[in-house]
């Protein structure tokens, strides 16, 4: 793989040729190769926790932006859950107006540094991109996320980040439960209208999954903290160490504490387990626990952190989503010699982003596909000594059209591991539902909402994973935005 400097030199050269032309034709634009994301090499990055992707240089960003065909129908925008005016900001970069680009993005999103890094663009904005359609691969679309990250980082690093304007105070108070992406988006949109917003976070640091879940090497925590500083600069009050439902009943916020509306963005909860023998042995973790120890509690920093992490040599991760990739790659960085990723279907069915799968493979994670765990083995101290697995083959397609994995009889074998990380998703968090009977939940415990994200309890809204089940950062943000619009309407009418 080429170094960032080599990539930049090539980009400058091509950019010079293109800028020399009077006008770029569609053919010129389509012939520009997609600019690869410069990254730390696999060998280098598993020895540190620094960010893997290094970001575009100005020449690379401008060149990539020039690939945009400026379709009048803006198909990319319809794929964006928060409807950022993508062609406009890309055009600004192509014309060298980076500051305009970030201003356009921030009209719709307060978290561009985050979204530019963790959104599954290939399934959203980039899915509909004409450049990608010409290439026959959404991965080859205009790299919208990388461009978003580029301008967002420029602004952040300049230290001239401007918080969105806030209207004069209405004197009305709105409470937000949780401080992850849904809650942050909600808080910004409601605060813009001049309402007082208080955000309640159970952990000692705000940010939700951005802080405890997504690893440093994919989303540096200093960036999340900076984005939250913008929230504070707008006048949003963030109260940590406070869990609604226990520290204070939700009802009391409305009835006693003077809040006019409440938004619940409490996120995923209760990690799912396989329900196989041995799952409570020492050395078996939910991905949530493993990642929280590593990220929020900084267990990787053995010189300073009090929270220990299980030091394993051979790790099995169960699951095929982004969280599974994060856990596998974290285990490597914490010194595992061998990491297996065990998944029941094939790579094509993996819910993880293609880029995450590729990064995991590059770093040496071994994929055991069409295999699954049936039992975890332990010694007399209940410490993990291995994991019994079985193999599958692909059978007839099921109702979703995917070929169903069929167990191969007699295929049992033991995988030699000393740690198992279960990353097969989450149930919903039971705390709010258990302490607030007025709020209806479905049979899986997710809060039931209408098209405005309104719950069954008056003045109470919900969004993000507590409604959707495990989803993505950007989908949660879309939910927060919708709920905020409804709350703003409710408060304006009252």
């Amino acid at each position, binding site marked *: 793989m080429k170094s960032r400097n080599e990539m930049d030199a090539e980009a400058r050269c091509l950019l010079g040729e293109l800028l020399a032309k009077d006008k770029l034709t569609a053919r010129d634009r389509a012939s520009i190769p997609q600019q690869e994301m410069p990254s730390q090499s696999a060998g280098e990055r598993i020895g540190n926790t620094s960010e893997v992707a290094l970001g575009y240089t100005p020449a690379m960003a401008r060149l990539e932006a020039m690939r945009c065909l400026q379709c009048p129908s803006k198909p990319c925008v319809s794929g964006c859950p928060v409807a950022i005016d993508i062609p406009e900001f890309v055009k600004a970069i192509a014309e060298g107006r980076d500051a305009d680009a970030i201003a356009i993005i921030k009209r719709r999103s307060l978290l561009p540094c985050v979204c530019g890094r963790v959104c599954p663009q290939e399934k959203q904005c980039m899915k509909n991109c004409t450049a990608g359609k010409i290439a026959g691969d959404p991965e080859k679309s205009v790299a919208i996320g990388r461009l978003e990250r580029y301008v967002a980082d420029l602004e952040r690093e300049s230290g001239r980040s401007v918080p969105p304007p806030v209207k004069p105070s209405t004197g009305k108070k709105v409470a937000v439960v949780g401080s992850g992406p849904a809650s942050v988006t909600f808080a910004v949109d409601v605060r813009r209208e001049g309402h007082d917003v208080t955000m309640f976070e*159970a*952990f*000692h*640091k705000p940010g939700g999954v951005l802080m*405890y879940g997504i690893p440093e090497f994919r989303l540096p925590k200093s960036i999340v903290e900076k984005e939250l500083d913008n929230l504070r600069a707008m006048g949003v009050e963030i109260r*940590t*160490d*406070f*869990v609604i439902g*226990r*520290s*204070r*009943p939700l009802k009391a916020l409305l009835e006693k504490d003077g809040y006019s509306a409440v938004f619940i963005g409490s*996120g*995923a*909860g*209760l*990690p799912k*387990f396989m*329900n196989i023998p041995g*799952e*409570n*042995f*020492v*050395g078996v*973790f*939910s991905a*949530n*626990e493993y990642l*929280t*120890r590593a990220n929020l*509690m*900084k267990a990787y*920093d053995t010189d*300073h*952190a*009090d*929270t*220990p*992490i*299980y*030091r394993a040599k051979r790790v099995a991760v169960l699951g095929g989503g982004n969280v599974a990739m994060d856990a596998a790659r974290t285990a490597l960085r914490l010194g595992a010699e061998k990491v297996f990723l065990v998944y029941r279907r094939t790579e094509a069915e993996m819910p993880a982003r293609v880029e995450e799968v590729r990064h995991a493979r590059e770093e040496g994670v071994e994929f055991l596909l069409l295999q699954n765990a049936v039992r975890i083995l332990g010694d007399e*101290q*209940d*410490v993990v000594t291995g994991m019994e697995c079985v193999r599958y083959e692909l059978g007839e397609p099921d109702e979703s059209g995917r070929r169903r994995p069929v167990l191969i009889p007699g295929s049992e074998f033991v995988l030699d591991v000393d740690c198992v990380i279960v990353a097969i998703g989450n149930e919903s*968090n*039971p*705390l709010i539902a*258990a302490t607030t009977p007025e709020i209806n939940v479905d049979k899986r415990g997710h809060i039931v909402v209408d098209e405005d994200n309104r719950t069954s309890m008056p003045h109470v809204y919900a969004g993000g994973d507590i409604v959707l089940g495990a989803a993505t950062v950007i989908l949660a943000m879309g939910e927060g935005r919708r709920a905020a619009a409804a709350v703003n309407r409710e408060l304006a009418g009252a």
Partner: protein
Amino acid sequence: MNNRIISKERLSENVWKMTVEAPHIAEERRAGQFVILQVDNNFGERIPLTIADADTAAGTITLVFQTVGATTRKLALKDVGDSIPDLLGPLGRPTHIEKVGRVVCVGGGIGAAPLYPIVQALKAAGNKVTVVLGARTAELLVFEKEMRASADSVIICTDDGSYGRKDVVTAPLKELCSAVPPPDQVIAIGPPVMMKFCCETTRPFGVPTVVSLNTIMIDGTGMCGGCRVTVGGETKFVCVDGPEFDGHKVDFDNMMKRMKAYRKYETQAAEKEAAHECNLLKMAKESERERNEKQK
């Protein structure tokens, strides 16, 4: 500043009692609930401690802890007027309190502290409450005075016979269960091994037995699953399903092994910390000496 330490008392060599300003926790807490605290906002661990008492008028809660790990050692170095950087609560389901008749409450070691609000609540609900307190030696016995003021009767056991009966708590528990009729309920809080044997003692008598578990936790709100235990063959989360469970169904052996999961790392950390801690203690002692001299 929130979470200010109002008073600090050394109950025995390694056991401390602190009253902490936390008005909203004092207001919302019910018997059986716990808090999670952190002494260092950046690098500290999050540990659960059961609430021993609360004063809603003063807006304070009482915590009793034993110095066993990094956080409890650092907490013990805090002085009156200092603040605990992070304090979250109340967490967990409150104890189910109703009038059942005759209840035996067993507290081992500092387990007596979280047992105290339960005894008070059981009495307030109209139960007849017998308290059995056990400790290795007289010096380690806590909350005896409070219990005597609240319970109908109190039985004391010490392993070395330095105070009360020279016995383990299961001996009087067995006698109480042998009575006709046996008690209507037993609540046992203490070291896991004590709770296990209390459950084994009451099982043949069919006396319902509640235990309060204090496992390793991180978030304490049902997100991480680090606290999970096997209860009646099912996985339960102590933080949101507990902390109290039907003791006859708890897999104590697995729980005790899980609680030891990090001992190896903690020992290493403690050794590494030893040199550093000496300095801290030196500083603490020096500041104490200075204060004393000033007072003179």
